[in-house]
């Protein structure tokens, strides 16, 4: 099997490498790919959408429809991970470990034992695998996380002018929460950003995107044609496109953030949502 695979792979690879001879050279500005369609975007992109970053304007406007489904892919992946992994009740649950905070005594409560309340301040739940106190990590993260989040917001908002946009910003926002979950523990992250929030926020994010498109439809223009939003936003058509891009980028950020966090919750706890990494 392996040999067969190797032979097949080498043959295919050889064919493809051989074919590269017919390609335009790397970096050739006169290749058909670089002269036909892209010229329009580069020459008209800024005038059409008032966004100097042409990638953003193509992403969110010219090919905004693709991006809507790109967001939907993330949303679908989040739903899929939840659907596949999430378990509400674990059959034959493992013992849980609690620390009595005033005394520092740790308790091991076997399956079926009486458990302290979820939000009890006296008893704090610990991960089953012992993790030593991580004072430095915790405090560093506590300091760094707000900056990550501010940077993420900047990335989202500044997507018109510089690399970045809703997707990257959303991932950064998610990363900040994930960092919190890793440096502290999963339960506390979930208490701050619950599963339900993630689910609803993900829906909301895609809904912002698709809803903006549908709103254009209601205004009489084609789907996702932000020009139609001009009367609502009180700006001219080009600025309306620019604002439209921002709105959908925010939607993307919402969806991506929520979904990546949700996927992380499910993957890191194998669907139990009690103990993370």
């Amino acid at each position, binding site marked *: 099997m392996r040999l067969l695979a190797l032979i097949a792979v080498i043959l295919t690879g050889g064919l493809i490498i051989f074919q590269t001879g017919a390609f335009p050279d790397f970096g050739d500005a006169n290749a058909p790919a670089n002269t036909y369609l892209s010229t329009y975007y580069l020459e008209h992109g800024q005038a059409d959408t008032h966004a100097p970053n042409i990638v953003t304007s193509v992403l969110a406007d010219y090919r905004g429809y693709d991006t809507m489904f790109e967001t939907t892919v993330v949303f679908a992946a989040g739903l899929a991970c939840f659907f596949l992994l999430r378990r509400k009740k674990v059959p034959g649950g493992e013992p849980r470990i609690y620390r009595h905070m005033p005394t520092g005594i740790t308790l091991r409560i076997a399956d079926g034992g009486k458990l302290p309340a979820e939000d009890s301040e006296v008893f704090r739940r610990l991960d089953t695998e012992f993790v030593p106190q991580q004072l430095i990590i915790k405090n560093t993260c506590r300091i760094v996380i707000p900056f990550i989040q501010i940077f993420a917001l900047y990335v989202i908002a500044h997507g018109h002018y510089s690399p*970045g*946009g809703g997707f990257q910003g959303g991932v950064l926002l998610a990363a900040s929460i*994930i960092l919190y979950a890793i440096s502290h523990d999963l339960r506390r992250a979930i208490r701050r950003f619950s599963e339900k929030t993630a689910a609803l926020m993900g829906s909301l994010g895609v809904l912002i995107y698709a809803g903006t498109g549908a709103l254009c439809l209601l205004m009489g223009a084609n789907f996702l044609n932000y020009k139609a939003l001009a009367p609502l936003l009180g700006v001219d058509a080009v600025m309306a496109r620019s604002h439209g891009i921002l709105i959908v980028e925010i939607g993307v950020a919402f969806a991506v953030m929520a979904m990546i966090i949700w996927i992380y919750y499910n993957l890191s706890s194998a669907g139990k949502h009690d103990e993370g990494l």
Partner: protein
Amino acid sequence: MIPIDLAILTLVTISGIGALAIKDLLGAAIVFSAYSFLMCLAWAIMGAVDVAFTEAAVGAGVSTIFCVAAVFHTTRRTKD
């Protein structure tokens, strides 16, 4: 003189094969993270800053975390 992008691409190949060759899944995940990061550098050099940014956040960041999370819940051992 070797152009820097060619050098990085060579490194990408090495780390890619390395990620598949290492007989420890956690190690593979980390090498894979390096692969992603090197790839993101290559793209940045080629002028694809948006793609590079995304790859840095997603490939080197989130993907690795997912991988580590999955390995954490399964096993590190592997036969190949």
